[in-house]
């Protein structure tokens, strides 16, 4: 049976956390409900599941690529213009250092940005059930349940203190 979303809106973090507890007690899997807020709350404030990510890999991969590109760019540029200056070698390391450093940092930062967007599961082209009151300070508890459990979940959210429960029309 296909799962359908239902969104409960809460005024306080305590009520939203109570709703989370009630959902857990009702046997809803932790991957089937989420808390939507307009600001970051301390981790675990709603008793939500622990989120793991691999963001830290991205800057390292980016830095390695940037370092390689930087070395290639600067060395190939010098080799392409084989003009001797002041008796110094054609392939001179000091002029390469700064450009290579900058290219390493630039690519590390660019990959970090890609990592943040990727790990945040963005862009989300199809936005699920949502309510604009969330960005006014209400806390949304978004639950995905089987169609036959929608009414039961709605009651559960209301009992936990939801000021409104929204279903997909």
């Amino acid at each position, binding site marked *: 049976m296909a799962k359908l979303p239902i969104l409960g809106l809460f005024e306080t*973090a305590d009520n939203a956390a109570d709703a989370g507890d009630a959902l857990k007690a009702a046997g809803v899997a932790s991957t089937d409900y*989420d*808390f*939507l*807020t*307009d*600001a*970051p*709350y*301390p*981790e675990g404030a*709603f008793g*939500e599941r622990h*989120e793991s*990510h691999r*963001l*830290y890999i991205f*800057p390292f991969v980016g830095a390695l690529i940037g370092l390689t590109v930087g070395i290639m*760019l600067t060395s*190939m*540029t*010098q080799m*392409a*213009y084989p*003009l001797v*200056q002041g008796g*110094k070698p054609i392939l*001179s390391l000091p*002029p390469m250092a*700064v*450009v290579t*450093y*900058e*290219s390493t*940092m*630039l690519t*590390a*930062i*660019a990959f*970090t*940005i890609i990592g*943040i*967007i990727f*790990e*945040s*599961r*963005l*862009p*989300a*082209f*199809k*936005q*699920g059930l*949502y309510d*604009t009151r*969330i*960005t*006014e*300070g209400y806390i949304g508890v*978004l639950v995905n349940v089987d169609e036959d459990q929608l009414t039961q979940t709605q009651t559960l959210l209301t009992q936990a203190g939801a000021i409104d429960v929204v279903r997909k029309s």
Partner: protein
Amino acid sequence: MQEGTPLQSRQVNRELLVSILNSPKWFWMVISVLGLIVLIAMSAAGVLINQGFGVTGLNRPVMWGFFITNFVFWIGISHAGVMLSAILRLSKAEWRRPATRAAEILTVFSLLTAMLMPLIHTGRPWRTVYWIYTLPFVPYDYARGIWPNVRTPLVWDPSAVYTYLTSSILFVLVALIPDFAVLRDRTTGLSHRIYGMLAMGWQGNPRQWKLQIIAGVLLSALILPVFVSVHSIVSWDFGMAVSVKSWHSTIFAPYFVVGAVHSGVSAVALVLIVLRYIYGWQNYIRHEHIDALGRLLVVVATGWFYFFVMEVVFGFYGREADEIAVRNLQFMVSPWNIWMIIFVGITYFLPVSIWLSRSCRRNLWIMSVACISVNIGMWLERFLIIVPGLARKQLLTFDWYTYRPSLVEWLIVIGTFAMVSMLMVTIAKVVPLIPLYDIKEGEILRTEIKIGRVTVPATFRED
């Protein structure tokens, strides 16, 4: 330090989005006036490109003047954004919240403006494509047998500035995603669609917030070394020049970086004061924030003053004739010596004596005067480094000359200040200059604790 009254999310949205959702009456008038000044500056640049460098005051041996001074100045201003934002984020300083966004955006616009200066200074900006594309598969225009020096320190500069600009833009954009979502929910029609695309489907679940917080810290840690590299590399535009004695100094890198922070943080303080005044953000940009910036500036200014004194001392210490000639010009010959006294007075002694007083740090008018004074002084500092050094570049005295900027140069320099102001006012109409979610997070974490018989405001801080 935790002043002010608790704020509700709805109130934060209403008050901080006032610059976007309501068009103040003065908006178009200010844009028109600043736009006119920018147009005049662009016309002056057009005259320069059409007529050649004869319309400027630049001539042998002073071939770097107002444009390069202005370039270094705007690069310096750009340092405030990342310095404030990154260091305060990493140290989880509570008073960073209202200051970070405006500082980061100021970084982007001042960098863009700075990058215009060397382009104009070339006189033939279309040829600067060869600065970037010195790759084997792009043919170089080696007319008259002149080949590029791919090993010059001048190549380092665009690579550093470009890295810093790209990183800063990405840093700002990532931090804006949650605020774009707020705007998506508060707008209709085309604006709603555009903000919706920029928000990329942001919902604000714990995973997204967790990554957003980590992003702030991780990007701060990555951008900080770039921030240090940029102005040190700008200083090497001068420090690596063997032939100009007063420039050829190893102290230039830290001296320039600390100077940049000095002028940049002062500029951010001024921008915050202006934003507080024009948008009525008294609940957000509070006296405690300006006070904190003032205290920080005392330390930065004193660090800068130390490097300034050492740079002069080292200049004398070597007792080289052409170095002494430059110092003689700077300190003994009018009008340079008068400019030098003014510069030191308004960059260090006047503002620091103001910042030492708590009541002055909390008086926004006095703070504005101090911040403007620092920035005029720091502009003069760059001018007094660049021009006297070149005026006494040669050992042979018959080749000594001075420099007088022309009207074209004045107009272009004034135009850059109008341009940055115009861009700041324009961006305030598009994105919130104070991060909404950061302020809301501060309100969530705000608490009070009772110690003995007093109840003191406190902030919960996560590791």
